[in-house]
């Protein structure tokens, strides 16, 4: 009998979820490792807090174990299902006011380029954008995070949030407008360039 590697990358998320619900640890591990980063980033960008994002990620996958049997493939992807659970976890965290003041914590700037000043500018811009996103009202924040930061489609975002696609579009537009005011006029192009790491001319 040929060895069938249970939980391989060739299996889709739904097959992994079904096996995990039946008690297959390897399938659950594969599913976790495949999707945990998306869930973590969503929670991190929504809360601005690493510890809150860790808690939300953990609770999301534990909730997946309990409610995985309710997943219906016809209603969306496992990723959307995960985002939906993570969204509930995050909103609960936000309501409880469990967010740390992450801006106050010193953060080591990763050295990714030949110019330390470029790195600092890049990192400051990233922090500024994250901070601005976290300051948005939750209903605008979540669509900005899903669509602009995580690259999800309007359809998938609508499935996660539970509203029509038209609502997603209007909230995106409104959210971007609010961010534009927070981040300052006329500096978006420079900020984007600094983040993408286009180096200044060498001294």
């Amino acid at each position, binding site marked *: 009998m040929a060895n069938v590697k249970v939980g391989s990358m060739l299996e889709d998320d739904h097959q992994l979820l079904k096996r*995990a619900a039946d*008690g297959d*640890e390897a399938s*659950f*591990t594969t599913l*976790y*490792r495949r999707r*945990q*980063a998306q*869930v*973590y*980033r969503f929670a*991190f*960008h929504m809360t601005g807090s690493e510890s809150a*994002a*860790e808690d939300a*990620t*953990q609770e999301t*996958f*534990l909730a997946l*174990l309990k409610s995985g049997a309710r997943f219906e493939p016809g209603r969306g992807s496992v990723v959307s299902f995960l985002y939906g659970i993570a969204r509930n976890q995050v909103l609960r965290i936000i309501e409880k006011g469990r967010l740390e003041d992450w801006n106050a914590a010193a953060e080591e700037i990763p050295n990714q380029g030949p110019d330390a000043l470029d790195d600092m500018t*890049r990192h400051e*811009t*990233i922090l500024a*954008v*994250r901070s601005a*996103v976290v300051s948005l009202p939750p209903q605008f924040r979540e669509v*900005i995070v899903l669509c*602009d*930061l*995580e*690259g999800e489609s309007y359809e998938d975002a609508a499935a996660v949030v539970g509203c029509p696609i038209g609502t997603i579009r209007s909230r995106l*537009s409104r959210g*971007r*407008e609010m*961010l*534009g*005011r927070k*981040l*300052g*006029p*006329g*500096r*978006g*192009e420079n*900020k*984007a360039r600094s*983040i*993408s790491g286009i180096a200044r001319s060498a001294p």
Partner: protein
Amino acid sequence: MSEEQVKSLLESVGAADCELAAPRSVEARVMNAFRARQAAQFRRRATAWGLTAAAVFTVALALSRVAFGPTTHAPAATVNASAPLKGASESQPIQRSEGAVVSATRLGDVSAHNRPAVSVPAYTPKQPAPMPREVVTEFFPLMDPAPPLDGAALFRVRVPASAMQAVGLPVREERLNDRVQADVVVGEEGLARAIRFVTVPMR
């Protein structure tokens, strides 16, 4: 800043943050919770099997009462038991007095939750006949490993001879459907813990 500039900036931040992921400690906690959940499900299934076995013997007891009426017992002649069994109605267990060697640490009174589920009218023979001496087998455990036993009751039931075969006693094929008497130790939680078979030799 225009909406397009904001969108571009957000996409740049999303790309810069694409390496963000939950730390290994979150995976460890999630997998520990998965294993704990699997263990709890296994224990629940084992308990369900035990309750099913107890229910089977309870039904057998009720059927025996309907078919044969309650019995009173003369002192049991066994190598282990030295005390007589008191008479029992359908709603009370046979009280084992001191000196009997059973697997339970003590035999307690029947409480409401482990009475037989079926109510059987009491039968009072006009002329109680003297009971012949009984011969019993050793007690065979029905749960392995058995959870701690705080208290138990002893039920006299009538079961098919196939129950003897189930615990390893030899029984001829043509006798498997014969009815035999058995004593079942039922814990306070309603689980059947052990069984022994009783024969009443013909005079």
